[in-house]
């Protein structure tokens, strides 16, 4: 059952990611990205991390992607006539980086190769357990991230409120 769900979601995620990169129409790419985010949320669900999965849908697919779509529609971007002009540097770096990433992940999988996932402990992935972990084991990283978000927010407000000469 979980295997079937995983296969369907994996196909959805990879296919929508390809559409995001390849499609010429920015609105189609944005909608494909939304599908991708929902698919990843489904993968979290398959891994019993239901709280993270639901938050992924609410925050990313429900709020952030709608904002991105909003901006694209306001700017009224048209279809790109030709591929995005990437520098030669990027053109060479991208395959190398992708290959390095694939080798790293592949070797890690090859070496660990667990026989099966360990059984899920009771209450795993619920809001209560995630909250407990956040406020005990991951307390300092959690606070650091909230500080980072506040800095980004203040920066955005300052930039948008700056009086132009």
């Amino acid at each position, binding site marked *: 059952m979980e295997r079937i769900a995983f296969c369907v979601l994996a196909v959805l995620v990879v296919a929508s990611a390809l559409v995001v990169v390849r499609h010429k*129409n920015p*609105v*189609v790419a944005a*909608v494909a990205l*939304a599908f991708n985010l*929902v698919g990843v*949320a489904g993968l979290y669900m398959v891994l019993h991390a*239901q*709280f993270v999965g*639901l*938050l992924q*849908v*609410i925050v990313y*697919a*429900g*709020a952030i992607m*709608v*904002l991105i*779509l*909003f901006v694209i*529609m*306001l700017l009224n971007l048209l279809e790109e006539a030709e591929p995005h002009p990437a520098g030669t540097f990027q053109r060479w770096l991208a395959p190398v980086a992708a290959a390095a990433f694939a080798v790293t992940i592949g070797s890690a999988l090859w070496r660990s190769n667990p026989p099966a996932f360990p059984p899920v402990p009771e209450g795993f992935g*619920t*809001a209560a357990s995630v909250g407990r972990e956040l406020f005990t084991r991951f307390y300092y990283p959690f606070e650091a991230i909230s500080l980072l978000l506040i800095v980004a927010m203040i920066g955005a407000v300052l930039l948008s409120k700056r009086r132009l000469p």
Partner: protein
Amino acid sequence: MDWLGILISGVKIVVVFSSLMLGVSIMTWVERRVSAVIQFRWGPNRVGPWGLLQPIADGVKFIQKEDIIPTDAYVPFYLAAPMLAFVPAAFAFTVIPFGPDIDIFGRTVKLVILDMDGGVLWGFAATALGVYALVLAGWSSRSKFSLMGGLRSSAQMLSYELPLVLSIVAVVLVSGSLRPTEIVARQAGTIWNWNVFGGGAQLLGFILFTVAGYAETNRLPFDLPEAEGELVSGYHTEYSGMRFATFFMAEYINMMTSSALAITLFLGGWHLGFPVPFTGWPLWILEILAFVVKLAAFQFLYVWVRWTLPRFRYDQLMDLGWKGLLPLSIGNLAFTAILVAFGIVGK
């Protein structure tokens, strides 16, 4: 595999969704009859007794109408948008408990389709995805009225989602659970135990939720996305026939879902609110009926408000959302947190 369990789930899904669709068709009739009463008219009264068969006549008419697709439309999204409006609206309803646990065929059946730990979040996630339908319908029609309607609706839904979610967070704080069945179970007993009164002291939260819910479902006085005077009919201007009807049904299902959420979170769910001298199946039926009656009352309130209040202006709408409801909902959350911390409400 547990075939009986799958069968029971299937029966629950079929029953809930056919009741929802029946509710939608009744609502289209109620809306026109009640608006007629409010405006001293008769309303549709020719098809069947009291015009009750009018929804069927409408359905037949919608199916017969020509399906027009604008020449410039972006066809895939244009065709998908009505479905994208309909599916999330129906999805959110799956976590609503509509009755007590009943014993049938020697096993306990929960009267909720999906009883999951993060059920409240599931409801948010489903409704959050409903925005895409309006945005994509507006964009893919390639019409300026549709586009403006789509943009307005996305701005409106994003702004009003914050007070909506914050007012629900206060309820979650009081209940100590994100599971709708547990939130309902805490409100058993008398009316005083409901979250809106003594059970959670959430009267302000309930008002905030209701107002924000009206904005989320694009109903008057917040129906700016389809303000006829300015935008023809907003994001679904270019739609005709059954596709238009699908948007229409999605709006009514959204109303039902948001009312059902309000009932579950604030108004005691399926609890009667007063003690009765019997138990067993008469009580189950009475409690399911209590849920239906509360839902119907909420739907009536929707119609009543729509035909009583005038429409907001767009800047007034944004002012109300960001400067009125949002600070109030944050204050409500802080106040509730203090009450819970001192053990005055909550468990």
